[in-house]
């Protein structure tokens, strides 16, 4: 034994109560963090400081996201902590949270709230896979998944926060979810791993057919998968679909191919649940996307892209094609270091509010969905922030992230945005602009070169027009995809799917409304009134039911100084019309009624009566 210059640090043992090797395959990051919390009982700021590696911000120590999102360092659970400090295997976290899934799945395939199987939780296990929208039951136990806390009944959140000491909860109470024994060493279950590995295999397979992996900071997202023929992909997709997928076919779906299950694709891609009709079978998805739209009322300024396709049939297909087209554009430009799409929203609007707004308008929803899709790819990374910073030539970043959305307070717009502009949607004004996008959209030759040679388009950026424009893609009568720029003073949107009622229905509704209004006015006319009699006193006049006749119209009786009374005018029935009195005018705000031969005379009389009424009221 030799002399020692360094003591044997007893800290060689982990400074936490933790047993490496018990993070099971497919276990979610949240359940691992929960186990850590139960065993170590840290106070929440210390937990955030160690597990999230955030030792600075007090604000962020109030809650943390249960997913490890690349763009939210310090606000979410850090996988590196478990790997480096607790000596866990990084591979155990391969499917631990949402950002580990293929990009398309990340966007729309997960429920907003975590889904939990109580039996799995009692065994110390939970998987992010359970939160996929398909599942309403645990694939292992056939038990209904819950989205609310069984103790407090509140919805589960996607963030951990401390409600009571030693309980980092995703609900509103002190639910620890599992026992201490299970937190120590959750048991291994090979049958569960096998089942989940089947699901994961299917997810990866589906992603390789329908989605593209964008080179990413994560080591296992570094493969770029080329586009596949959609119809071929769909057939393979269906054949390889496992039995546990509970397919729900929409009631209005019309499929000519018996095994065609577009709803699944739709649920992957469709943001606004608007379905676009495609006339014929799509053969060359590789090149572009195809949509059908009535363009007769659109004033076309420019068509930038035309792509051939053939043999279209009457499928209903979601936004898949447009997304494909736009995505390919984005990817080529992203990889070519020429990114032009920025998700730009107003800073004082929450993501939820924006989402509700865009969902109310199908067309804005489409634009939003495309932007959302773009954001789901590369913009979630810090790299995008840095790139954007460099693109704008700014040294210091002025924008920040909140709720997963990039926001920026920035006046002038000189980079390219995509979407739509409409007067009624001021929130998107000057923030969504497709002009530059269309200017820079590659030509057919460039696209082909990109797709075949995997090359990048080299094109000088130059000065870009930034007129307020709208753009849309549609399928022309010559079976070509067209992207157009439309300039109009008043925007009129064509509905892609005819969700709006027909003119007959609209007329019937208007007529019904008119009749209802007339009945209401008739009731008001025949209400009891008072008259200024010859003896200079007000007299009650009761039964006026005979007066209800004909069409009644409303107007205002201007009394000066900005005051007015509402009144209605109706024609007297013939049997009551005497001494040339043809019209009856009834004040709706005062109990006054006059007869007159002309409406002009009636208005004068009614005004006099109203003034008399006012005077008498002021006297009394």
């Amino acid at each position: 034994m030799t002399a020692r210059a360094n003591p044997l640090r007893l800290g060689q043992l982990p400074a936490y109560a933790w047993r490496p090797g018990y993070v099971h395959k497919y276990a979610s990051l949240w359940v691992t963090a929960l186990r850590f919390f139960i065993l170590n009982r840290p106070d929440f700021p210390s937990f955030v400081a160690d597990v999230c590696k955030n030792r600075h911000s007090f604000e962020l120590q109030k809650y943390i996201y249960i997913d490890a999102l690349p763009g939210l360092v310090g606000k979410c659970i850090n996988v590196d902590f478990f790997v480096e400090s607790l000596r866990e295997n990084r591979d155990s976290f391969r499917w631990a949270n949402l950002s580990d899934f293929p990009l398309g799945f990340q966007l729309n395939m997960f429920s907003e709230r975590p889904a939990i199987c109580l039996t799995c939780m009692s065994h110390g296990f939970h998987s992010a896979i359970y939160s996929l929208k398909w599942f309403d039951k645990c694939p292992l136990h056939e038990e209904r998944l819950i989205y609310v806390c069984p103790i407090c009944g509140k919805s589960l959140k996607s963030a951990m926060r401390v409600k009571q000491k030693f309980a980092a909860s995703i609900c509103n109470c002190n639910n620890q979810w599992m026992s201490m024994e299970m937190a120590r060493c959750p048991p291994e279950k090979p049958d569960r791993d096998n089942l989940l590995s089947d699901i994961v295999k299917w997810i990866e397979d589906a992603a390789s057919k329908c989605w593209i992996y964008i080179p990413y900071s994560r080591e296992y997202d570094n493969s770029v998968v080329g586009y596949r023929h959609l119809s071929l992909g769909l057939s393979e997709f269906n054949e390889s679909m496992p039995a546990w997928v509970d397919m729900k076919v929409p009631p209005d779906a019309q499929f000519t191919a018996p095994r065609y299950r577009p709803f699944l694709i739709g649920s992957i891609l469709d943001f606004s649940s608007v379905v676009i009709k495609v006339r014929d079978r799509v053969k060359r998805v590789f090149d572009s996307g195809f949509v059908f739209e009535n363009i007769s009322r659109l004033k076309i300024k420019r068509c930038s892209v035309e792509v051939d396709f053939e043999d279209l049939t009457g499928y209903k297909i979601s936004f898949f094609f447009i997304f494909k087209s736009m995505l390919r554009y984005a990817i080529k430009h992203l990889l070519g270091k020429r990114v032009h799409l920025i998700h730009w929203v107003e800073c004082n609007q929450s993501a939820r509010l924006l989402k509700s707004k865009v969902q109310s308008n199908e067309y804005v929803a489409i634009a939003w969905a495309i932007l959302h899709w773009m954001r789901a790819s590369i913009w979630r990374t810090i790299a995008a922030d840095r790139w954007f910073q460099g693109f704008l030539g700014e040294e210091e970043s002025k924008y920040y992230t909140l709720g997963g959305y990039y926001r920026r307070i920035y006046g002038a717009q000189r980079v390219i945005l995509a979407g739509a502009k409409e007067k009624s949607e001021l929130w998107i004004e000057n923030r969504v602009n497709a002009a530059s996008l269309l200017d820079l959209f590659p030509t057919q030759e460039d696209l082909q070169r990109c797709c075949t040679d995997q090359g990048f388009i080299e094109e000088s950026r130059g000065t870009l027009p930034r007129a307020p424009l709208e753009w849309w893609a549609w399928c022309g009568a010559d079976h070509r995809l067209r992207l157009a720029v439309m300039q109009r003073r008043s925007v009129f949107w064509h509905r892609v799917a005819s969700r709006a009622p027909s003119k007959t229905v609209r007329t019937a509704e208007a007529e019904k409304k008119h009749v209802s209004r007339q009945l209401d006015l008739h009731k008001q006319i025949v209400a009891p009134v008072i008259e200024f009699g010859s003896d200079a006193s007000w007299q009650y006049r009761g039964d006026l039911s005979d007066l209800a006749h004909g069409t009644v119209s409303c107007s205002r009786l201007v009394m000066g100084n900005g005051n007015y009374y509402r009144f209605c005018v109706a024609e007297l029935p013939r049997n009551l019309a005497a001494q040339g009195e043809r019209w009856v005018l009834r004040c709706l705000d005062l109990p006054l009624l006059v007869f007159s031969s002309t409406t002009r005379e009636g208005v004068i009389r009614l005004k006099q009566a109203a003034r008399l009424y006012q005077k008498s009221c002021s006297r009394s």
Partner: protein
Amino acid sequence: MRRLPDHISSEHPIVTGRYAIFTPAVAALADTLGDWLDKKITGAYIYGPSRWGKTRAVQWYLKSLLEERLGGDQPLHIWIRPLTFNTPGEFYKSLHVGVTHQFSKGRISPNDRLIMLREFFLASADNCRTTTVILIIDEAQGMTTKEWIWLLSLQNLMDQQGYVLSVFSIASHQMAYEFDFLTRTGNPHVGARFLVDQWRFPGVESEDELAFILDGYDEQSRWPASGGVSYLEHFAPADFGHQKRLAGAAPSMWRALVALLPSDHEGRISFPMKHIALAVEDVLFQLAFGAAWEDVTSVEAWVDTLTTHRLADHMRAVALDI
């Protein structure tokens, strides 16, 4: 603080004092603890006068020696007891901080701390694939009955989970009376748990042992740890090149040590490791400043050096403990 010669690094362990020399007493300590663990003793104490090198032995060598003897990692935790505690909260917090749990700070109730300590110890045992957790309590001579009882709670909690908490206390002479005290004050069960056996930590007791220790400075030490030279070679390269070794000066140093014993000293001869280390460090510095080898390793020189560090006074003070 004197200015060091150019060839002496300010980070050298001799300069910083951050080093430990392996002694026969260290090996004996590890053997004793190993025997106790083999016998599944739940608690025992080691006593010895201060400055004998007990703490250094525990902190610098015990873990590796136990791992060597028992095979594999050992869940060894050391708690240096700072003071007497009046409440279980203070006691558990000190223990919690002492065993370097990451989340030991903050306001935590005693019950919660107890659970955190239990989980921490259980995890450390599981990580080492054993069911016995070793807790060394340094400066345990002042442990009160209450503190023993609080420690008993932790031991019982672990026992419920099927794990053993072996508590080994390191203390000075006062510990010898603790067992009787606990027995006579109605707490024999505490003594039966934590004071089952005892062992006296030896100092440097013979010339051979001293030569072994000095050889640690001559040959068995390395700085830097990989590819470095021994402490003697670093401080006196010329003398080292001329085959001068401190181990060769062990007889003269031993004579000096014996000469400095109190005149009325009876019983076994045992010297504190701390004073020997300080004397050797002085010699190394003198050699580094260019002193002649013979001048600093003579009996007179050793006596001077040891007197500087008040060995005689210390030996008089601890004579009763030896």
